[in-house]
């Protein structure tokens, strides 16, 4: 008896725009995050993640309006991260409409914020984001600021510690694989998923639906964050509006090219693939009856 795996579109946000990079760098503008969020919600996303990818660098958080607009029409859990430093920051993001927050830099600088925040808002509200980079000697170390700042912390030790401190979930990103389309870091995911009792969300690297199946089966991921595969599918099938006055590289979007390492798929494709391969996940039960999937 296995449990239902969550598929979580991850939307990286810079200013007013949805962006996507490679190794969390070289950000390309893809469109308006709210439009992607609404589309993913209607298509059957299990949760959503908004990450303000430049907030840590500039110490700002411009997400509030986007969160408010999203929370009015999207009734699935929304996690927000990027640049949250204090209990007050967390409170403000929750008030704007987030259901959970994701912390990285703040937690590494001051681990006590994990226990304080989980006591105040409930463990299930506090998700710890771990950005891992594999070292030449094979060890995995945790980084902050989109993989730029070295912390010296071993990923495994840090993961166990955040669980003890009261984190509700871990979002584990392989910076090495992120945006490459080469697949998730299976070794990293499995190492952490086996060591903790809280759910682990695998993040970074999906280039095809097969990669998602692999990180569930071999990596033991409890949930999977997906970005490029879904975003490129959205762009192929929708007219995209971009805020041109604002920051960001829009050349990619205007060229209408897709990144060759990515095989776009929508949420239905992903869940259909998972069902056919014996994984359980939430689906449209009316459709399920027609197509004959069983529980």
């Amino acid at each position, binding site marked *: *008896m296995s*449990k*239902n*795996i*969550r598929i979580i579109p991850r939307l990286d946000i810079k200013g007013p725009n949805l962006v996507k990079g490679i190794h969390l760098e070289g950000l390309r503008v893809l469109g308006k995050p709210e439009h992607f969020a609404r589309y993913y*919600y209607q298509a059957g996303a*299990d949760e959503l993640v908004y990450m303000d990818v430049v907030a840590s660098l500039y110490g700002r958080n411009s997400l509030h309006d986007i969160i408010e607009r999203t*929370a*009015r029409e999207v*009734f*699935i*859990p929304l996690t927000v991260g990027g640049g949250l430093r204090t209990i007050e920051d967390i409170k403000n993001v*929750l*008030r704007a*409409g987030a*259901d959970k927050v994701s912390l990285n830099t703040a937690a590494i600088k001051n681990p006590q914020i994990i226990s304080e925040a989980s006591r105040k*808002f*409930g*463990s*299930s*509200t506090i998700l710890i984001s771990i950005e891992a980079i594999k070292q030449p000697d094979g060890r995995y170390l945790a980084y902050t600021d989109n993989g730029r700042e070295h912390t010296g912390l071993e990923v495994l030790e840090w993961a166990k510690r955040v669980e003890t401190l009261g984190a*509700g*979930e871990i979002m584990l990103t392989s910076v090495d694989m992120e945006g490459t389309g080469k697949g998730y870091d299976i070794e990293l995911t499995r190492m952490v998923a086996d060591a903790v*009792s*809280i*759910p682990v969300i695998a993040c970074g690297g999906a280039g095809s639906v097969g990669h998602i199946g692999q990180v569930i089966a071999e990596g033991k991921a*409890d*949930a999977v964050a997906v970005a490029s595969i879904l975003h490129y599918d959205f762009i192929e099938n929708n007219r995209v509006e971009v805020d041109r006055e604002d920051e960001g590289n829009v050349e990619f979007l205007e060229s209408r090219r897709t990144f060759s390492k990515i095989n776009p798929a929508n949420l239905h494709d992903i869940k259909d693939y998972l069902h056919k391969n014996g994984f359980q*996940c*939430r*689906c449209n*039960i*009316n459709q399920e009856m027609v197509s004959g999937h069983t*529980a």
Partner: protein
Amino acid sequence: MGTPHSRLQVAVIDYGMGNLFSVERACEHAGLNAIITADKSTIMNSDGIILPGVGAFGDAMDSLERKDLIAPIKDFVEEGKPLMAICLGMQLLMSESEEFGQHKGLNIIEGSVVKFPVKNMEGGKIKVPQVGWNRIFQPSSEDPTYWNESPLKDIMSGEFMYFVHSYYTVPSDKGAILSTTTYEGTQFCSGIRRRNVFACQYHPEKSAAEGIKIYKNWASATKSKQRDGL
């Protein structure tokens, strides 16, 4: 959606546990006027109350007691007015909980609150809390009208809802069980219906369109109660 005057006023009980804004937004979406409050007279004058909650059972009961909210909630239910209890709120309705030692609950529904086992039948590790989507089923022994006249009306048995919890309720009277769910081999009570009380372990406000339907159904039931002069 009606005018503000025709809207029902619902008190979302604020006892300092968890994020109430998503409950408030779901109410608005269902055409209810939600007020997040810990004020006794506001609660007593509402058309319905919602007892939400995330966190630890003991802390929650302490907080309800400190804010002097235990009697108002029980009185409200006693008057036959509608109560919806969600997640930890559902657990608080029970007589007692084993969470971090024994704690007394509101005792509105007779029964207890217990924790998921940490290992399954095969000895494998189970992730607790359960975080994510799972199915709610109508118990086979249940009279179908029990479901169809509840806020689960028009929702199919087997539908997915969003759960976040480590503990679950065990009502003494199995007849109070509205729906069951199975997590890692443990079948538990995921919904309760008892007269004017509806309780669910999942978060309907986070369970997409089918979850919002529960709010809408509860809102129309609350509206007809009000018409009946309750």
